[in-house]
């Protein structure tokens, strides 16, 4: 193997692969990244046997070949590389010689023959989502994923392939985030999609996979992400990177029926103002859950965010938000509410309440028209007294 490639491409490929290696030591080769030079391409692969990633970059290949190199070493090398010079790679025995400008490195590797084969996709892609859009969706739903592995299915994100809409949802059983994408706005392979949505309309994707994808999607250029689903596995294709992941076995809990169809009371106001009021209240919030109280007085047209702790003191903030509907008083966990507010991307938000013991929702507000947007919903359960 002998080749030359640009440093930018090289770093990008390493960045995409470096985190996918296994942390277990049963198979040492899983700590490595596979380098493969073939026909003007250098492809890098890494896997932990749950997720696999393959990044291809253009290169001037003089001699084909392959080797695996420890991910930790090559990623440290790549991070510390001074910018500029092109990189030349050459295989010598079981080591990889790397040259960039005045720097020379020799890294010891393992034979490529034992490296796992990354599953290749067989079916055509099912749908295409804009990378930037996917990144925002993921950042929202990843907040509510359960960290505790006691319930496997909740550690993933539920993707529902509906007739007209696509839903991404996650919950840790205390709060829930759901994002709706209308199919008409996406490019969809209609035939395949129909077959899938009727046969297996609900999937659970491991959150680690999606966190990694969200990391790899760069925010600055909007490249579409192609999604392909096969039995037990899912593929994501970005420009030159393809990621394959297992799906979580199991049934995601039905959550649609918990989401209220209508809300009696609605308050609308600046996200920043609400955020700082809740943050302030959380300082004095009592109990392990950080309880704060939101009191909506419909007659006086006032919203009061308050908290009180026997140890530390108390606090209250009055907000001049638009109120529609009757007065309400709810007790909430400040942590869950705050994390929900953080996922709102518009400058204004709506808080929707039915009663002190039913779920309440956060939604975004259209910047121009001031309407409540229904695509994204974040639901929190109030604390029972």
């Amino acid at each position, binding site marked *: 193997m002998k080749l030359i490639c640009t440093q930018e491409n090289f770093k990008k490929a390493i960045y995409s692969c470096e985190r996918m290696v296994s942390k277990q030591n049963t198979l040492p080769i899983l700590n490595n990244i596979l380098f493969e030079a073939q026909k003007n391409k250098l492809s890098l692969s890494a896997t932990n*046997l749950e997720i696999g990633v393959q990044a291809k970059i253009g290169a001037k290949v003089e001699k084909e070949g392959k080797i695996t190199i420890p991910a930790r070493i090559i990623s440290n090398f790549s991070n510390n590389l001074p910018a500029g010079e092109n990189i030349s790679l050459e295989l010598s025995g079981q080591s990889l010689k790397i040259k960039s400008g005045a720097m020379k490195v020799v890294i010891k590797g393992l034979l490529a023959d034992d490296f796992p084969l990354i599953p290749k996709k067989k079916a055509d892609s099912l749908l295409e989502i804009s990378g930037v859009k996917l990144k925002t969706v993921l950042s929202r739903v990843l907040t509510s994923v359960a960290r505790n592995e006691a319930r496997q299915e909740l550690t993933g994100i539920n993707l529902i392939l509906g007739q007209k809409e696509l839903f991404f949802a996650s919950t840790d*059983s205390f709060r829930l985030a759901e994002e709706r994408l209308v199919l008409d706005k996406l490019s969809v392979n209609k035939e395949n999609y129909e077959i899938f949505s009727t046969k297996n309309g609900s999937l659970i994707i491991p959150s680690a996979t999606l966190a990694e994808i969200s990391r790899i999607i760069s925010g600055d250029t909007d490249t579409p992400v192609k999604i392909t689903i096969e039995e*037990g596995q899912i593929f994501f294709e970005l420009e030159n990177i393809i990621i394959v992941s*297992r799906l979580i076995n199991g049934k995601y809990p039905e959550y649609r029926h918990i989401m209220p169809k209508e809300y009696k009371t609605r308050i609308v106001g600046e996200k920043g103002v609400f955020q700082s009021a809740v943050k302030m209240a959380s300082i004095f919030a009592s109990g392990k859950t950080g309880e704060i109280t939101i009191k909506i007085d419909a007659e006086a047209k006032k919203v009061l965010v308050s908290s009180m702790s026997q140890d530390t003191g108390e606090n209250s903030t009055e907000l001049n938000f638009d109120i529609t509907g009757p007065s309400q008083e709810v007790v909430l*966990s400040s942590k869950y509410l705050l994390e929900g507010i953080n996922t709102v991307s518009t400058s204004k938000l709506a808080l929707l309440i039915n009663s002190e013991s039913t779920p309440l929702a956060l939604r975004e507000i259209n910047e121009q028209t001031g309407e409540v947007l229904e695509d994204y919903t974040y639901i929190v*359960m109030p604390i029972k007294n």
Partner: protein
Amino acid sequence: MTNEELWQTALSEIELSISKANFITWFKGTSILSNKDGHIVVGVPNGFAKEWLENKYNLYILRAIRNIQEEVKSVSCTISTANTEDSTQKEPLVDAISAPKKVFVKESAKFFPGQENNLNPKYTFENFVVGGNNELARAACFAVSQNLGQIYNPLFIYGGVGLGKTHLIQSIGNEILQRDPSSKVKYIPSEKFVAEFIEAAKTGKINEFSQCYKQIDLLIIDDIQFISGKERTQENFFHIFNHLSQSNKQIVLSSDKPPKAIQILEERLRSRFEGGMIADVSKPDFETRVAILKKKAMREGLSIDDESLGFIAGNIKNNIRELEGALNRVAVSAQLSKKDLTPTYIASILGEIISSGKKKGITYKHILKTVSGFYDISPDELIAKNRKQEVVRPRQVAMYLMRSELQYSYPGIGSKLGGRDHTTAIHAFDKISKALKVDDKLFEELTSIKDQLYSIV
């Protein structure tokens, strides 16, 4: 031959031709899904295993299967999404979200396997004798009883038989109940836990079983090492464990060895056991033994002089239970024969128990046999004149045991082990004695060698 038998037989053959790591990585969770017209479909857990088995191991698999069933012509793999776990045993689907509860106090919720907490009220911190051997363990237990679930969760206490583990961990429970009788405390020996689990599995009440354990404020499991090898129980225990520790409920475990020495224990359990506080109780020193005897004598209302107590404590060193047994024996015989308790009289009563090693008729041959058997070398090699790395340590262990268990003289040890010099024996004894204090693994080894030694006679 069923598909399962066929696959098991094939696997055992494949296992021989590839490395263990590879075997575990690629063949875990596989099974034969169908066997029709000479074509076998193997179900694999993920796409990686499918690619690997189809492209790299196809020949191995085919060869192994054809050795058993010649008519098989081809093998292919498919990702089986069928849940390997029985879906009916999963927790019933609950609502996706629920309210975080403000407080967890519920009035005497019903306990399924019986409401008794199994605690023996006689075990308390007050009547526990503290010595250098158990200071740390006692302090940890006491701290836990004062701040339930806040510090040291889980608390793991280990030590040999009859050294007071049970006393300590039950004391926590009694202390808690004394302060707040409504607390839910449960003490259970692990074999009983396993038995309850099996019973629940038999009657299909695993959910109730888990549920009832998940409501406990303080769960004490004694002799947790017996859970080793019981995979389903371990799995269920893992979930209960997680649930309790997440809701800041206290878990206290005891075992006869540290977590890393328990065999066939799932890694995730092991690491959780090691995640809290680990404290050991070791053999009590002479002063502690005397103190224990004094306390016991006082409780029983015995009048016995310090010299006699010292004599008993000096002769029974390994086990507190034996120590108390000896005192009981002395007390009863004295009562019956109406004689005064003097060291000579006590020696005559306890003659059978004292220095049990000699009494049991163990000779140096037993030691050589047990040691060589334990380290898997031949007894001749222990005696032979060489200094091979793998023989040196066992030989030193044998010398140590001959000295400590049989009180052989150093020259005697030397001559029994191939005419070695007595200084060699002295060196070996010193070396092992020193190593025992710092090397836990060696300590474990010696303990099990001694167990074997005394069980073969």
